[in-house]
């Protein structure tokens, strides 16, 4: 069983690698198309700006590879910016097209001016709202209300509510903090930075790749 982490020059991939290794996975970093398509599970990491992320995926010529992977019905997970890139488009720095694997778009996290809430949202925050059951997903055996580490200013808004796996509240707004469509998952938070609970989510993903 081999899990590929996509290397496209974005973000802190070492922590993701070591979190997967810590959970016993055979994991490797790659930007090679064949290696990606042969892997039993795929992770799209990323931090920073949406447009920068898409530009890099294009310059590494990985957009079609990722889209092809998504049709194979093997476990595929986007983390933080990697989750946002799964969607159709983002309004960050003007409209930018995404991978379009999940319907919906990426918008700025709404905040109430009156409360002077801060952006970016840098905080541990709770996973709530079971629109869909968590059993047999990456959130298997995760307790509702578990704290995960978030750092972001933009959020994904899935068009289909059934794609919303969990929500999280910030500035009185409940945003989609994890997403699921078939075997494609996304986490707005960083499971690799969220202590033992985050590692449990990674472990759940690894187990799916073994099936």
């Amino acid at each position, binding site marked *: 069983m081999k899990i590929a982490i996509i290397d496209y020059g974005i973000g*802190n991939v070492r922590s993701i690698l070591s979190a997967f290794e810590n959970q016993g996975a055979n994991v490797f970093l790659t930007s090679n198309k064949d290696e990606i398509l042969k892997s039993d599970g795929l992770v799209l990491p990323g931090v920073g*700006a949406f447009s920068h992320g898409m530009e890099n995926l294009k310059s590494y010529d990985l957009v079609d590879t990722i889209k092809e992977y998504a049709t194979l019905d093997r476990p595929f997970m986007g983390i933080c910016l990697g989750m946002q890139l799964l969607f159709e488009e983002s309004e960050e720095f003007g409209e930018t097209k995404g991978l379009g694997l999940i319907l919906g778009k990426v918008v700025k996290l709404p905040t109430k001016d009156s409360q002077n809430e801060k952006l970016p949202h840098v905080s*541990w925050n709770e996973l709530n709202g079971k629109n869909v059951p968590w059993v047999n997903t990456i959130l298997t055996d995760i307790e509702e209300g578990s704290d995960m*580490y978030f750092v972001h200013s933009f959020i994904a808004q899935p068009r289909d509510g059934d794609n919303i796996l969990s929500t999280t509240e*910030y500035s009185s707004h409940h945003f989609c903090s994890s997403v699921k469509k078939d075997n494609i998952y996304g986490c707005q938070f960083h499971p690799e*930075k969220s202590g033992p609970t985050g590692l449990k989510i990674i472990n759940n993903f690894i187990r799916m790749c073994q099936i």
Partner: protein
Amino acid sequence: MNKIRVVARIDVKNEFAIKGIHLEGLRKVGNPNEMARNYYNDGIDEIVFMDAVAAYYDRNSLSELIQEACKDVFIPITVGGGIRTIDDIKNALKSGADKVAINTKAVKYPNFIMQSSKIFGSQCIVSSIEAKSIKDGKWEVYTDNGRESTGKDVIEWAKYVEELGAGEIMLTSIDKEGTKKGFDIDLYKSVVQSVSIPVIASGGMGQSADAVELLENADIDAIAIASVLHYKMESIQEIKDTLLQHQIKVRI
């Protein structure tokens, strides 16, 4: 209110974790990796490693330490001290850091904050500010662990780094640092009112009651703790329990 992040700050010199008073008179307090692991296992929310002498010696040497730490510490790690080029940031992130704290270089070339936040994203650029009180309600920006004065006003500088793209501010009170006599509440109040990015308060905590007093008076996002943890005066759990008893939300 957001959950307050409880951060362990580990100042490093060569291979040792050290601690001083007013950022001076440094004493060895342990092995930085062992300390980071222990704090992680005890429930700390975040770790900051600061190379205490990097700016002074014009170097940057924490890569190995970070590589080691991120093998078994699965929470955000910030590295600071001696970050002065885009390559320094790349190396730090490649080694496993999530954020870099920048002080001296930003004071000399403020555009470094803008440049680096454009490349790596604001979320990974922490503006580290060392503040020294000059008169009532006025603080001056210092660099090089409180060695060099800059003539800059802390409030104005904090607003400016936000404008330049810093994603967070780590604000250290030189007057309080290492004294264990409590935070400089006026300083934090003044800065959080002036910016809308998260502020980490660093310097002065001697007991969890100091954190409560700060958090009840200023809209701070995170507290960085050194002495209380390094000298095992209170455990992380005890600190979090005290905060919870005062209706201050933390990650459990």
